[in-house]
């Protein structure tokens, strides 16, 4: 690569990074400002005080919410991985009539607007007694068309010989699934795991609906709790909460970026 091309690329990279990261950095900066500073429209705080963070943790049980979000996200992640991989396994390794039709049915679920299903789902959850516990927060999300699709693409790359070899050896189907297919698809599972963790972590409306107590509420609700309507919002505190809320997901993303990218692409391409 020629020198000029190299430096233009660097220049573009840096410029793009600055533009893209600006909102996050801006929020970070505001999270250290006092109320007056925020209203003056400053870009940089005059001093870095953790006042806002302390306030944020004081105002709502943010720590508790963080733990709930974490537990819920992990739970959904595990559930999605299991349910999706079971389905994907059937779509790849078990031949039966009508398989493609069912697969199409799965894919079509991606098109159902979530808002349209919320009220009936809430009533269902209520009938099942899933209000105010992790069941309601998590189980409705265990089945995921996108995840099934992603894993199906991955499973398709597993040579059929592996399956046949285990058939000859007399290994049961489930054992093959558990001991071979899953470990071999680690990358995609991690990808899907990160993806489901992120999406679950970021849910707001549903958790609000199905929880009535702080015991199981999540950080996104906490974020909403910081903002007020009729009286002034304390922006510094809200931004502090924003930072607290996005920090874990950003961290997760940074750690899993490589795998995520690899896994997502496998799913994207036939």
């Amino acid at each position: 690569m020629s020198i000029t091309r190299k430096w233009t690329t660097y220049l573009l990279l840096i410029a793009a990074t600055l533009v893209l990261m600006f909102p996050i950095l801006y929020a970070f900066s505001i999270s250290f400002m006092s109320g007056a500073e925020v209203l003056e429209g400053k870009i940089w705080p005059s001093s870095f005080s953790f006042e806002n963070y302390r306030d944020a943790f004081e105002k709502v049980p943010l720590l508790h919410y963080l733990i709930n979000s974490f537990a819920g996200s992990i739970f959904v992640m595990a559930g999605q991985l299991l349910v999706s991989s079971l389905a994907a396994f059937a779509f790849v390794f078990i031949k039966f009539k009508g398989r493609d039709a069912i697969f199409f049915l799965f894919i079509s679920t991606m098109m159902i607007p979530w808002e349209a299903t919320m009220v009936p789902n809430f009533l269902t959850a209520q009938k099942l007694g899933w209000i105010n516990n992790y069941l309601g927060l998590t189980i409705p999300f265990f089945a995921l068309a996108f995840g099934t699709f992603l894993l199906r693409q991955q499973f398709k790359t597993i040579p059929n010989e592996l399956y046949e070899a285990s058939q000859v050896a007399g290994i049961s189907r489930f054992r093959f699934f558990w001991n071979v297919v899953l470990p071999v698809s680690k990358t995609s599972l991690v990808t899907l795991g990160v993806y489901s963790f992120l999406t679950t972590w970021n849910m707001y409306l549903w958790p609000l609906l199905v929880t009535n107590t702080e015991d199981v509420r999540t950080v996104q609700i906490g974020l909403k709790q910081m903002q007020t309507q009729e009286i002034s919002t304390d922006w510094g505190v809200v931004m502090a909460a924003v930072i607290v809320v996005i920090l874990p997901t950003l961290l997760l993303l940074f750690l899993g970026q490589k795998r995520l990218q690899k896994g997502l692409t496998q799913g994207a391409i036939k």
Partner: protein
Amino acid sequence: NSTGSSEAQETKKTASGKTEVVFWHAMSGDLEKSLNKIVDEYNKSQDKVEVKPVFQGTYEEAQTKFNTVAGTKDAPAIMQTFEVGTKFMIDSGKIQPVQKFIDQDHYDTSQWEKNISSYYQVDGKQYSMPFNSSTPVLVYNKDAFKKAGLDPENPPKTYDELKAAAKKLTEKQGNKTSQYGFSILNYGWFFEELVASQGGLYVDHENGRKGDAEKAGFNGKEGQNAFNLINDMYKEGTFYNVGQNWDDMRAAFQSKKIAMFLDSSAGIKTLVDNAPFDVGVSYIPVPKEEDRQGVAIGGASLWMSKGISDETSKAAWDFMKYLATPEVQAKWHVESGYFAVNPKAYEQDIVKKEWEKYPQLKVTVDQLRETKPTPATQGALISVFPESRQKVVTGMESLYQGVKPKKALDQAAKETNRALEVANQK
């Protein structure tokens, strides 16, 4: 949701044997902190009842949820609902009027601020317990008044004065306006108040208090006055459009983008704290001084669910009574900026001290007390209020797009009528 579920539920008890009262609210931020403190004190003050406050999102979100769980075991004992949800709650059949407990208990409601509690009274029956109430006030920048050669102690009272003052307050550099004279949030409530303060009715049938409303009335003379005011000032360049967001509006005031605006009385204190200038508060303006009827309240009240056990109801009532005591109301008023339901609260020391520090607060209370009790200031009762508000907001917004005030109002009225029609079919 079969009606069968409205049978009395079992009384939920806490581990220590106290009766559990679940209390859903929409108070976020500092308000939630204050509310939690009050609840805490109540819980500690006795050993029979344990109130559990639960934040349920915005008023709308909270009500949606209440609507779906009302009558089941997941329903709360006490539900906080915004003022425009009143009719909806009454019609839902999922609540019991507090009048029942007032009667049982021979509770003296005369200690309540009449102008507040009357909003929640229908056919002489008290449906809910007033809790956090506010009214609109005119807030202005005293420093800017001085600078513009206006008397900071004599803010505009009528539309004409307002227009004149706004003209003086508007500062322009070239074609760029650095300070606007006046602003109103694009929020239905302010429009309703502007109509009510002139004695205008929002809907027919005495604002819906003498039977189900069927037609919108807000597009009459009073409503047109209000829309014309906005339209005229906007055209003159003295009115600034701050949108729908309370925070944006206050930010604009605090950063001196606007010199006067209408705000909720509940927001005054923080405003005074944060503004880098002297803040003045006055009554909401009217077209002519003789029109002044006062204001209707905004805010929310507490409702008692149906289908909870008697024991729980009693416990919830006990808590409601506690909330209405002057001491608690004083604290609530001081911390939140909302009115005290019980006027005796204003005689409490902490309130007096607070008023010394924030004389602006007293103005808000005075405005409320001077209000003449009429169907207009009592507030409208319609089930589709939120929807109607959206239509009015859209109407206000369309003003800035150059739509004629009358046309904008009529459109909003037409759509409200249809919503009423649909609702009345149910």
